[in-house]
């Protein structure tokens, strides 16, 4: 099963490689990883999306906790939480598809952040399903480039999954 794990770490040199080294060294999978500072500049938060059965996820959580620079590990999948990811998609549609591309972007509440004679660049934020859906629709229009931030997640206050 896919898990989204949020890891608070000391914002120190080498921490990212300790975490990625843990995953590669032990043969765990990383589907996406995003890092950024928190409000406290000494602390960073990493959101890691990984796949594994309960046994592996338990090991991953424990191994992360064991790293000296890790402050806290939360398996978001066990909590009610909100997940988002941003993607930017550069589309190069044929003349007759241009209007359709803009329509699709609008339906998905995307924004055109750049355009040229031949391309539109659309920014979309959403969860997995939404992103998968827009990609599906834009594919036939000619996607030229595609970048994504990796998922970030935050727990919903006061709600615990039963």
């Amino acid at each position, binding site marked *: 099963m896919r898990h989204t794990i949020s890891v608070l770490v000391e914002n120190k040199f080498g921490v990212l490689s300790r975490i990625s080294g843990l995953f590669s060294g032990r043969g765990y999978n990383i589907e996406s990883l995003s890092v950024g500072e928190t409000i406290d500049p000494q602390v960073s938060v990493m959101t890691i999306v990984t796949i594994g059965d309960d046994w592996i996820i338990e090991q991953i959580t424990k191994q992360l906790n064991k790293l*000296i620079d890790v402050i806290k590990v939360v398996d978001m999948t066990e909590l009610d939480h909100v997940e988002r990811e941003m993607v930017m998609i550069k589309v190069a549609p044929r003349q007759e598809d241009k209007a359709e591309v803009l329509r699709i972007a609008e339906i998905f509440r995307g924004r055109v952040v750049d355009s040229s004679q031949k391309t539109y660049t659309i920014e979309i934020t959403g969860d997995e399903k939404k992103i998968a859906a827009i990609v599906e629709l834009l594919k036939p229009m000619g996607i030229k480039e595609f970048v994504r931030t990796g998922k970030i997640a935050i727990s919903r206050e006061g709600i615990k999954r039963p």
Partner: protein
Amino acid sequence: MKISGAEIFIESLKKEGVKYIFGYPGGVVLNIFDFLHDEKDLQLILTRHEQGAVHAADGFARATGKAGVALVTSGPGATNTVTGIATASMDSIPLVVFSGQVPTLLIGNDAFQEADIVGITRPCTKYNYLVKDVKDLAAIIKEAFYIATTGRPGPVLIDLPKDVTSAKADFVWPDTVEMRTYKPTYEGNRYMINQAAHMIAKAKKPVIIAGGGVISSGASKELKELAEHTDIPVTMTLMGLGAFPGSHKLSLGMPGMHGTYYANKAIQDSDLLVAVGMRFDDRVTGKISAFAPNAKIVHVDIDPTSIRKNVRVDVPIVGDVKKVLQTMNKVLKEEVKEQWGEVRKAWLKQINAWKTERPMSYEKDTDIIKPQYVIEKIHELTRGDAIIATEVGQNQMWTAQFYKFDKPRTLLTSGGLGTMGYGFPAAIGAQFAFPNKLVIDVAGDGSIQMNIQELATAVINKLPVKVAILNNRFLGMVRQWQELFYQERYAHTKLEETIPDFVKIAEAYGAVGLRATKSSEVEPVLKEAFSIRKTVFMDFVIDWKEKVYPMVPAGAAIDEMLFREETKKSEKKLKAVK
């Protein structure tokens, strides 16, 4: 008053109570070596290879329980420490290793003798540091010792750029270490401990498996109390040998691949395993899916990642073994209050039957030297009062099987990594810690050649370390596998033609060399060696055909053992068919 980084280094180590640094010099650590030159209280022991330095620090640590310290130069000096660090890491041994580094401004430039040792050792240290500012140095050293020696111990590396050792700062030694991210759990969960105690009370066929964690937490007394009070037999992993007296009537010896018949039988038949300070290594469990099929498992360990990593666990207890066992013993005595004597009778009788059915034994010979005989004689002559190091291979397994370790910290052996070349430098480190103890490295003719240069270290420091080489002219353990599983095709395991004369080597370094080629010479050679206060190499020319039995083939369940007698018979049968 401001002092240099090199002086801060020295003052900090003194504050930590360090007496010996095992090391090797080079360009970027010259500032430190220069200050060490005049030091009386802090001695640098020059080894002849950086790997030797780290193993010596490791041997010192295993024998004392204190952190071992090593100091090496950048680049090749640093990379030479990696095997030693990984060895310590696998066996949870506290080390603080200092490596020199090129000056801060040159880092990343592929400077002369630059190696990214922090990157290289990240997966095999508990933690590591690159010191960028001399003002942080004292606090980092304090923290490093704290991390190395607390929780599940392990090696820590500190990389010291040359300019940091010359830059000046005030020496401020912190009183305490406070880390928000590192807080090992020492007290076990009381509810879980109660659970475990009640399971012990109910169990008909319990077995305790004790590992190295019992030794590192100093819990031998508590373990003995538990075993004796509840009449539970105890098996000790390779790392756990000495945690419980090997000569105790409840001892089952070692389990696993080369474990005793009765330890493996007991585990497989048991209804409750109480695993303390061990991590269910594959050499212990054999085929996981067939391991202890009927047993509930109580697992006590300070490292939560050890629990449920390899085997299912019914009662996990994260905590310091000593503290957990103290509580458990109390609960058993005050709350459970069972009378064990009758309850255990049938189980202990069964175990004794297994012990008589297949005791640890070997084919005695009056002429040719059997390696097991050498180990038995060493045990007999030392009365178990010695520190024994081993190399890796058959020599290591025979030592584990035939020397009865009664006390903790008397066996120094590379368990997790299985590092050939570990034993001799480790013995040197231990001899520094205990100058008046008999320290013996049981070696193989292959392994001893991996760090044989440390003869110089032993001789120059007048260390009475003894090395007993079980010389079978083979990389014996590998040969054993080739014999059993590769149709006797001895690819690159035969050393015969190129075995050096170990007696002459010893003499060339200024040590004493002795040799025994007949069974009757074993005892006189050992007696002579033990009576000389000098470094002695003993070359025991043993029966090369001897194998380590019992043996669980890789991937088999631990009760699917091969025994000497049966294997011999099937060999004969095979030959008859041919």
